[in-house]
Structures are given as structure tokens and as C-alpha cells.
């Protein structure tokens, strides 16, 4: 009897699997559904500042889906441009992170095993200070009478300070700086596992060192490149703090628009729609990533 009952009761397996699912449900699925719900409602001046989706009229339960918010996003070029501009900035930042991060990850992976952890530590160490403080430090470096300009003027390279802060260049510097560790770590994890004999085999078959890199190391690190790029690009699309503090008034990013809608215009439905569209935009590259990753895993297991 008890044995039969036990079959229907959750066992130890569940205790292990359940917490992450519960976590995802509580902190991803539920907030997402709330935001989705709000995005289909209309703005009202009340508390909460949106209309309910369902209404009892007599004996019927009416469900009203207001698509105006989404249509508004589509029709207003400001939002379309903000999305495109966010994607562009995120893509270019990812590419820059890859260009800067790959050599660093490669160099760390080639270090003697004893010094690798120290080098990785140095990569991660800056993140131990507050993100905001580091961004303010960059402002201090880049502003017109900041460290960089003063130094260049002192060197005599330039006569007038370069305008870097509050330009797109500053946004790229900020994003690349902030997300570089997320590129380096997965790349390092991949590169450190490479079998050096493959490179020797390539030399043996007539490859010069740079050819061996292009034909062996680079293709074999593809999974690391994809993982690092996703980790940089996905948060970079929705980045708010860096464009807000370091970008100019014309730096259009969707994170800033979201802030404006939510806090300045108090338009929760439109803000929710902005967030949902952004999520969809981010899910597509994530699915591509997942697809490649599972393909690679299958390949290895076969």
C-alpha cells in the first residue's frame, strides 16, 4: 500500500530537478506572463495604470486584447530605429569583444597551467567593484578634461580635447569593457581544451603557424565563439546604464526607450510591449545558439 503510494509521491529525483524549474517559473515565467498581460491592456490614469484584460459583462467573460501598443511600436519609427540601433550597437560591440577577447583567451590558454588561474582572476577582478563605479571611472577617463585628453595634450599629440564622451564611441568602449569577461571566459574554456598535437599535426602537414590557426584552432573554437558572443550580445541589446551615462542624447537604444516609457510617460502597457518585443528579438539568437550547441553535443556523443 505504502509502496504503491510512494510511486505517486515525488522522490529524490524531483528534489534535485525541482528547484531550478521552480526558480525559472517564479522569476522568469510569472514576470513574463505579467508583462505579456500588461502589454495587451490600455493605459488608464489609475492604480494600477492599465486596464484589466478580462471583464464580466452580464454572464459572459470578455477577453479584450489590445494590440494598439504593438501596432504603435511598429508604426512609430522611433521604436523601430531604437531596436535596429540596439541590435547594431550590440552586434558591433560583440565583434569588438571577440577581436579583443580572442587573443586574450588564447594567450591565457597557452600559459603554463600554474599561471592560468591568476590570469583568469585578473580578467574577473574588475567585476568585484561596482559596475556603476567602473562606468563613472570611464567617464572620468574619457571626458573633455579627463585623464585621456589631458594625457594626449601633455604628450602634444592633440591641441584640443577629443570629444569621446557622449558619443557612440564612448558607448562602444563602455560595452566592450563591461562585457569582455563574458567573451573571454567561454573562449578560454574552449581553447584550453584544445589538443596541441592537432596543431603539430597541421605543421607536420605543411601548415605555417597562421594557417594552422585559421584552419584548426579557429574552427575548433566555434562553440566558444558562439557562446561568448551570445553572452555579450544578449545583455548588450537591452543595455541601459552605459548608453544613458556615456552615450549622447542621440544614442538610441531600446533600454533607454523602455525607461522613458515606464518612468517618464508612465505608460506601462507600451513599456511592457517594448520589453516583450525585445525578449522575442533576443530569443531568436539564443535558439540559434542552442541549436548549434546541441548539434555539437550530438556530434560528440555519436
Amino acid at each position, binding site marked *: 500500500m505504502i509502496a504503491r503510494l510512494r510511486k505517486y509521491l515525488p522522490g529524490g529525483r524531483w528534489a534535485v530537478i525541482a528547484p531550478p524549474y521552480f526558480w525559472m517559473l517564479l522569476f522568469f515565467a510569472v514576470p513574463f506572463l505579467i508583462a505579456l498581460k500588461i502589454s495587451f491592456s490600455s493605459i488608464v490614469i489609475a492604480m494600477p495604470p492599465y486596464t484589466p484584460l478580462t471583464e464580466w459583462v452580464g454572464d459572459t467573460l470578455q477577453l479584450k486584447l489590445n494590440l494598439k501598443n504593438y501596432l504603435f511600436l511598429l508604426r512609430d519609427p522611433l521604436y523601430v530605429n531604437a531596436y535596429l540601433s540596439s541590435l547594431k550597437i550590440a552586434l558591433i560591440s560583440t565583434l569588438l569583444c571577440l577581436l579583443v577577447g580572442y587573443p586574450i583567451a588564447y594567450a591565457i590558454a597557452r600559459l603554463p597551467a600554474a599561471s592560468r588561474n591568476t590570469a583568469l582572476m585578473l580578467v574577473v577582478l574588475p567585476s568585484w567593484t561596482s559596475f556603476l563605479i567602473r562606468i563613472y571611472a570611464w567617464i572620468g577617463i574619457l571626458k573633455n578634461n579627463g585623464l585621456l585628453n589631458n594625457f594626449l595634450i601633455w604628450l602634444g599629440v592633440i591641441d584640443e580635447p577629443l570629444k569621446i564622451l557622449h558619443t557612440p564611441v564612448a558607448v562602444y568602449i563602455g560595452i566592450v569593457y563591461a562585457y569582455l569577461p563574458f567573451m573571454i571566459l567561454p573562449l578560454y574554456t574552449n581553447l584550453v581544451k584544445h589538443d596541441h598535437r592537432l596543431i603539430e599535426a597541421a*605543421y*607536420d602537414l*605543411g*601548415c*605555417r603557424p597562421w594557417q594552422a590557426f585559421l584552419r584548426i584552432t579557429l*574552427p*575548433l573554437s566555434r562553440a566558444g565563439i558562439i557562446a561568448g558572443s551570445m553572452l555579450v550580445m544578449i545583455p548588450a541589446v537591452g543595455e541601459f546604464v552605459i548608453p544613458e551615462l556615456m552615450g549622447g542624447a542621440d544614442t538610441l537604444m531600446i533600454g533607454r526607450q523602455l525607461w522613458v516609457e515606464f518612468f517618464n510617460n508612465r505608460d506601462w502597457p507600451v513599456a511592457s510591449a517594448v520589453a516583450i518585443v525585445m525578449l522575442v528579438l533576443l530569443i531568436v539568437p539564443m535558439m540559434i545558439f542552442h541549436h548549434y550547441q546541441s548539434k555539437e553535443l550530438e556530434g560528440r556523443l555519436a
Partner: protein
Amino acid sequence: MAATASSVAAANGVAKSDAPIREDYVRIDDLTKEYDGFRAVDDVSLSIRKGEIFALLGASGCGKSTLLRCLAGFEKPTYGKIELDGVSIVEQAAYDRPINMMFQSYALFPHMTVEQNIGFGLKMAGLARDRVAARVEEMLTLVQMNRFAKRKPHQLSGGQQQRVALARSLALSPKLLLLDEPMGALDKKLRSQMQLELVGIIERLGVTCVMVTHDQEEAMTMATRIAIMDAGKIRQVGTPDEIYEQPASRFVAQFIGSVNLLEGTIEDDEKDHVTIRSDVLEQPIHVGHGVTGFEGQAVAYALRPEKIKIEKDEPAQPHNKVRGLIEDIAYFGTHSVYHVRLQTGKKLLVHFMNAKRWASERFTWNDTVWLSWGDNAGVVLTS
């Protein structure tokens, strides 16, 4: 020492090449490789003939792999010369040397198919696409892997991976082929089959080959000549039967196969025979030929276990016989190994071929037996 190497049908299963032999196709002179003061390869000189399969045999850490890597160009010798077909190659980078290597556990490129792996070197050499394809096809036929051309390495078995690795290293028609522990990644059954197959392919192409192995059976099966390495030095070079039947030192005698070493001194040094007095035998050992030594010199008499005859009754011969007690028996099917303790306490290993069914039942534990050997059964070692 002038002991005649009794030419026992060699363990060497390889027919020697009929091609004109060039004594120093590969010439290594005074080659030394040091790492932080440690000499991995210590003043090695070797000549390798064209078309032969030359094995570097030694325990791990003896320097054989370092020597191979010096040949491949992955290590730069501290000093010394390497010539290939009369051309010095020490200054050449690995990618410029006309040498290819089959790596230990193969180092196949995991992201390329079998044909891409085999064609890689050809593509790097700048061959036109159709010529690459033709050569790859030829190589696939050579190793009988045509059916697997589109597979990735991880979809192949160990033996198939080895064929691909061999095809890849032969595709560029190297002047010298290097094999690094060629059978290391295969299980025992497959190993003996692939050994002969590999030798067959290498001999058919007539390519000169240097292989590194720690497995003496493998070296003896595959190689035309073997160099025994220890602590960075070459201890002996010879054909497999020379190494086995005529070891030059105690080290080589003990390294190859199993051996009974009887320490003693030369008692009677005649032109046509020698006697050796050993503490472990009551009788002096009678050697049926002269040796280059002197009376009173400390020597070792190396006697292979299969050269000793074991029987119940005392043999008729006047010399080279001793009585003992069977202390241990190891039964291997084809033969049995008896650990026989002599009255002096010395233990001798004796192999007994189980040529007849149930022959091993003749001797059992604690039997008193007579051991005997011929006048030319052993080798007198001075070093």
C-alpha cells in the same frame, strides 16, 4: 665476444627489402637535446637505411619520443646534426621538412571528414582540387577506407582511425615516415593484425620509416632494425634476432624478453671454450666458444628461459646441468613458465613448450627436476 648468434627463425615477421640499401639515408650525428640541464637525448648517432622500418624501443622517459620529435621538427636539438637523403634538416621548420608523422592516438582533425583529413597536406601544398581528390582516392584505396570517406573521425573505430592517420601521413609521399606509438591506442587483438597490415602498406610503398614504441613485441614484429634506448642513449642497434640472441649488455638482455643472468668470473679462458665459475651453480658453466676476456674477469652469463631443458632424470651431458625444486608455475597455454629454485637459493626461469596436450601435467609444485642447456645456449656479457 665472438659468440655465434644461433639463427633461430626470427621473431621478425618482416621480409627484408630487396631495394639497394643506402646505409645513411637518415644520418643523426651527436644529437643532444637538453631541457633545463636535463639531457633527454644524450649524444645519439644513428644511420638509418633507405626503405627500412627502424624502431626506437625503450621505457617511457628514455628519450625516444624526444628523438622522434627532433626528426619531425617539433623540437630543436641543443646540438647535433640530422641529415635526410644528404640534406641537413636541423634548420628546417616542421612544415618545410619532407617528413610526415602518424601521431600517437592519431591527432586526426575532429572537424574534418576522412577525405578532408587525408587531403589536408595536399591542399596546403597548393595542389589543384582534382589532383587532391585523385590522390585522396588513391590513399583511401590503399588503406581500404573508401566507404568511410565522408565520415568524421569520431564516427570511426580505433582501427579505422589508424588507417586514416596512416593515409594522411603518406599522402604527401614523405621521404621519411614517423610513427609515434602506432599501436598504443588499439586493443591487443587488433594490434597484432594492424601491425602486419601497417608493415605491408609501408613496404609496398617502400617508404623509410622510424617508429617509436615501448612495446618490444611490436618493435620485433614490425621493425627491420631496433635501437634500444635508455636514459637518452642508444644501448644497442640490431635486427630483432640480433638484439634478442646477442644482447650487448646486461641492460639489453634484461630489457628484451626474460632472461636468467648468472653472475660469475672467467675461470678458464681457452681458444675454443671458456668456463665461468658462478656462485649460484655447483658446476662451472661451460661455454663452447672463445670470448674476448681474461681469466678472473667478472662476467654475466645470460641464459634465455626457453633455452633451458627441464626433465625429471639427470641428463647424460657432462656440463651445464643443475638440480632444483619447482617453486612456482605459470601456465600460458602455449608454454608454461617454471620458477625453479636451485640448492644455492638462486631461482631460474624455465620455459617449457606444451607441444603435446596435457604436457604441462608432467611437472608440478615441489618436484625435483634437472635443468640443462647447451654449450652455446647463452651469451657471455661483460658490460
